[in-house]
């Protein structure tokens, strides 16, 4: 492969090292990796015997690219390290995720599925103003259908579940970021069983998996997604042909048939399809659920007191009824006497 830049490797290394030594006037205590210097020496001595400069002990800049390295055609966000960080950020910031198995969907089918999903989410009515009067954020644009790389996603999930960065602060020689050796050692020594969410969800992450991620637990949006991607009558019926003819497009239909909803993760707990249908069926969102809980608690108290007092109340009511009846009789008797007396008085007068 011809070199990328037409210059000699040795001179470019020398120039790069010179740049670092001249610019390193600020005292930053970085540990100079000894291996870099050693490798550099080996490289210099074995391949570029023409270089006579003394390079041992000095450091190359971190963004140094050897001129013989061809430019990369791979997108930087697909590098494993970057992907791991993306997945840990995703797991920490999305409380609701649906996992689908996707079986050999073609690119056309993917685009048809995403088109229908976007149309269905756009049709979800935006909620009214929040409790503090501000207009709520529209989350429909941030709901994504992402294909996951399960090997890296597994590692990311283990890190999120078992590695606690706050506990590492006090220890010596321990790092707190997700890519550190500390994180690796922690997840390697962690015992994974059914009690952790990772242990419950790891059987789902087999084979080709895609995920729909929601930034907020919103039952309305979840219901919309279930209606499109995993419909089931009667609660989550698919859109009708009249209202949404694009849904019944054969490409879109074959795409939907290849997607199987296998489970979900809601607020770090594993849910299966029935559980997700329950979450999607909550009306009024989380506030509605809280209101239902409050009314349930109130009614429960009321029902208990009613049951306890029922007997005595019944007795009181019966006696009251009898008393009013007796009073009426007495009044009726008096009235009759009064009427009789008035009638008699009227007759005599």
């Amino acid at each position, binding site marked *: 492969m011809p070199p990328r830049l037409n210059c000699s490797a040795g001179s470019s290394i020398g120039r790069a090292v010179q740049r670092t030594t001249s610019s390193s006037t600020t005292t930053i205590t970085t540990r100079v990796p000894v291996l870099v210097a050693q490798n550099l020496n080996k490289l210099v001595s074995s391949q570029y015997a023409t270089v006579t400069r003394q390079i041992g002990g000095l450091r190359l800049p971190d963004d140094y690219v050897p001129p013989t390295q061809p430019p990369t055609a791979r997108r930087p966000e697909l590098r494993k390290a970057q992907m791991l960080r993306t997945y840990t950020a995703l797991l920490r910031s999305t409380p609701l995720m649906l996992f689908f*198995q996707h079986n050999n969907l073609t690119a056309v089918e993917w685009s048809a599925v995403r088109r229908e999903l976007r149309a269905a989410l756009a049709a979800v009515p935006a909620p009214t103003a929040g409790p503090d009067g501000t207009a709520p954020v529209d989350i429909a644009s941030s709901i994504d259908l992402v294909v996951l790389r399960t090997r890296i996603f597994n590692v990311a999930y283990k890190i999120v579940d078992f590695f606690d960065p706050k506990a590492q602060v006090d220890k010596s020689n321990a790092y707190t970021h997700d890519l550190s050796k500390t994180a690796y050692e922690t997840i390697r020594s962690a015992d994974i069983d059914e009690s952790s969410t990772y242990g419950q969800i790891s*059987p*789902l992450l087999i084979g080709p998996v895609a995920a729909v991620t929601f930034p907020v637990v919103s039952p309305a949006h979840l219901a919309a997604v279930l209606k499109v991607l995993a419909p089931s009558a009667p609660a989550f019926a698919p859109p009708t042909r009249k209202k949404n003819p694009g849904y019944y497009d054969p490409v879109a239909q*074959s795409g939907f*048939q290849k997607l199987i909803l*296998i*489970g979900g993760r809601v607020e770090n707990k594993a849910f*299966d*399809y029935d559980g997700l249908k329950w979450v999607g069926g909550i009306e009024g969102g989380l506030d509605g659920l809280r209101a239902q809980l409050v009314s349930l608690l109130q009614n429960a108290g009321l029902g208990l007191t009613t049951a306890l007092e029922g007997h005595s109340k019944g007795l009181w009511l019966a006696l009251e009824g009898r008393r009013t009846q007796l009073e009426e009789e007495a009044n009726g008797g008096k009235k009759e006497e009064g009427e009789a007396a008035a009638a008699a008085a009227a007759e005599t007068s």
Partner: protein
Amino acid sequence: MITRFITEVKTKFNPFSMRSRATRLFLSYLPPNARNQGMQITTKLLPRTSTEPNSLVVKFKDGKTMDLNGEVLGIKGIIEEVDRHSRALQKQADLSDG
């Protein structure tokens, strides 16, 4: 995997159980145009707490029905069994065509 001679695939599995791994992977081996070429693929998901064993039923063009146990065979075993019968059918088809 030779899929030209398969007419129907019926699966039933519990996705939360590790034992249904082979059944799920078999579904991913079916080609993207399988449904267009007439293969019927039905999947039934068992609820998380069910203990019903997972099942995979494959029907071929000559009418043979194969009931495969993913737990015992594994994905390689399943593909081997299906391919064995498909190769026999392919030989017959080659002989009858040529």
